[in-house]
């Protein structure tokens, strides 16, 4: 009996591993930036090119940085969620307009609405590289000390906002 049970058990374990492994999303690469200081940047603003925006301006506040682009279809998908989150006023939402043309970015905001306090304009995508961006949209939660506490690769959904982001913002705001 044993002679059949042991291989069967091993087979069962293998199936279990495969079942879990194949169910994982290979796009969800753990970011090495979690719990590290948000990389420094200073970029012109999208609406007012003469003014700049830096992550340093936000020290002392809990905030969200949402990486978006007019060419990114998933950004359109998450747009209502970002808008709702921004309206709730739990934390200010700033945009990083990534590898976009200024007029395209502005037109996109006019068409779908602008949920951001302001958007920084990263035409070269160099700030994106510093933040490890590889699949727009991406969203970062940054705490009062300027440390990245959470990163979402891909569109935000209301489930993620409810289960992950809002509780984290609450906790960080109290800290």
């Amino acid at each position, binding site marked *: 009996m044993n002679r059949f049970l042991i291989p069967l058990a091993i087979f069962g374990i293998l199936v279990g591993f495969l079942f879990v492994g194949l169910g994982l999303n290979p796009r969800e690469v753990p970011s090495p930036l979690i719990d590290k200081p948000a990389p420094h940047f200073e970029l012109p603003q999208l609406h007012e090119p003469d003014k700049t925006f830096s992550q340093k301006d936000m020290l002392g506040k809990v905030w969200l940085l949402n990486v978006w682009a007019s060419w990114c279809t998933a950004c359109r998908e998450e747009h209502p969620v970002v808008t709702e989150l921004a309206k709730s006023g739990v934390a200010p939402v700033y945009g990083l307009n990534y590898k976009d043309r200024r007029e395209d970015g502005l037109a996109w905001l006019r068409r779908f609405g602008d949920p951001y306090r302001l958007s920084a304009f990263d035409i070269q995508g160099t700030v994106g590289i510093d933040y490890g961006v590889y*699949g727009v949209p991406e969203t970062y939660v940054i705490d009062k000390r300027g440390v990245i506490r959470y990163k979402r690769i891909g569109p935000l959904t209301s489930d993620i906002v409810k289960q992950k982001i809002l509780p984290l913002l609450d906790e960080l705001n109290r800290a």
Partner: protein
Amino acid sequence: MLVLLLILGGIAHAKEAAPAAEDPVVERRAMALAEELRCLVCQNQSLADSNAALAMDLKNQIRDKVKRGESDREIVDYLVARYGDFVLYRPPLKATTLILWFGPLILLATGLAVLFYRLARRRNTAEAELSEAERARAARLLEDGSEAGPR
């Protein structure tokens, strides 16, 4: 729109490929590095193989760094700091990657151990199973082969 994007993509590609010919030594080193790094947008390609916009940008970053005289180690660390060990095709040996590195070896060793254990046991049991009566019968058979029996 799509056509426009394709055309623009083509132009951008042509522009970004330009530095490749500049200095063959730099290019060779940059490409050797890019072969070892995974493209995050298209995960089954290396940075060297990929034409994704991000892969292009990263290759340009690598070229710049090679030109500035940074070591391979520094360049790889730069990318790992941003994208994690995942960009490396050869992950480093750390506590979290021990199973990855030694798991197959452990499995192989376990398999061999089980195999030898079974073989050894089979040999022992085979020898022990002949009783005295059987031995006597075997001896008779060998001597004259006279015992009647079904053939």
